[in-house]
């Protein structure tokens, strides 16, 4: 690792990010002064800032760059990146950020990338859960799923994730994608972030609890859109 100039990390949660960067055998123990770090995970802004402070002490220039998009976009360089950090540092790794993304957006200092990402995921998870609840009502009332999808996909209730995930969901395909437990985790991060800001996030709390019920009902490991199946199976004809 001693001859490498840029270290990127993409890990599932803040504890793993902390361990990867700050742990006793972590990246900062081995990184050379003057090298760059690019942290791509969806974690809380405070953990990102702590990693950046520790990196700075070692002479490592840290960039906060969470991503929007799934495995397919990751593999084809079509992610959207939210990039926080020193603008000169970001310019130095511009070719890396461009190789990963169809677009990258500057969000401000280190930590702001994670903030924008958490806000995005709050909205995305909310859109999926509300769509699942509403869609299940429509089909329970007798509208054919394919027809309902077709009409809604051109109507005001649609969202990015509705268009992307529901065609699979109505075929009973819940292969991830984006796992339900990651959606629940991101909402927990957003709620906790709101708490540190004294900013209420009541809808996120309800949506997180619904996803926790989905996980408890056995949908762990499946795509977040499996919440549609959870709602469908809750329904009992009277």
């Amino acid at each position, binding site marked *: *690792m001693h*001859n*490498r*100039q*840029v*270290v*990127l*990390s*993409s*890990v*599932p949660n803040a504890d*793993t990010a902390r*361990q*990867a960067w700050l*742990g*006793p*055998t*972590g*990246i900062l123990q081995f990184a050379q002064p003057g090298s*760059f770090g690019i942290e*791509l*995970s969806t974690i809380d802004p405070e953990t990102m800032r702590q990693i950046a402070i520790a990196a700075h002490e070692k002479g490592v220039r840290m960039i906060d760059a969470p*991503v929007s998009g*799934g*495995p*397919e*976009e*990751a*593999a*084809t*360089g079509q*992610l959207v990146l939210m990039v926080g950090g020193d603008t000169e540092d970001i310019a130095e*790794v511009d*070719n*890396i950020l461009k*190789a*990963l993304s169809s677009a990258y957006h500057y969000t401000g200092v280190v930590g702001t990338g994670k903030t924008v990402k958490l806000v995005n995921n709050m909205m995305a998870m909310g859109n999926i859960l509300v769509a699942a609840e509403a869609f299940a009502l429509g089909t329970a009332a007798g509208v054919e799923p394919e027809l309902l999808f077709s009409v809604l996909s051109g109507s005001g209730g649609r969202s990015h994730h509705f268009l992307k995930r529901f065609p699979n969901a109505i075929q009973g395909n819940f292969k*991830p994608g984006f796992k339900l437990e990651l959606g629940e985790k991101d909402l927990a991060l957003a709620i906790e972030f709101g708490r540190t800001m004294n900013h209420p996030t009541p809808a996120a709390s309800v949506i997180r609890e619904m996803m926790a019920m989905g996980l408890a009902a056995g949908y762990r490991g499946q795509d977040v859109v499996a919440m549609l199946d959870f709602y469908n199976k809750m329904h009992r004809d009277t």
Partner: protein
Amino acid sequence: MKHALTFVGIGQMGSGMARRLSASGFDVLGFDISARVGILPRQAA
């Protein structure tokens, strides 16, 4: 200038990104994380 890259966390998202960077001409070394033993070398993406 092309950088030499180390990619930590080559799971579902990370492996795709590491492969993409490799295909874009970067020299990429992949690592994965184990909670017990820190950073483990794994097959480069």
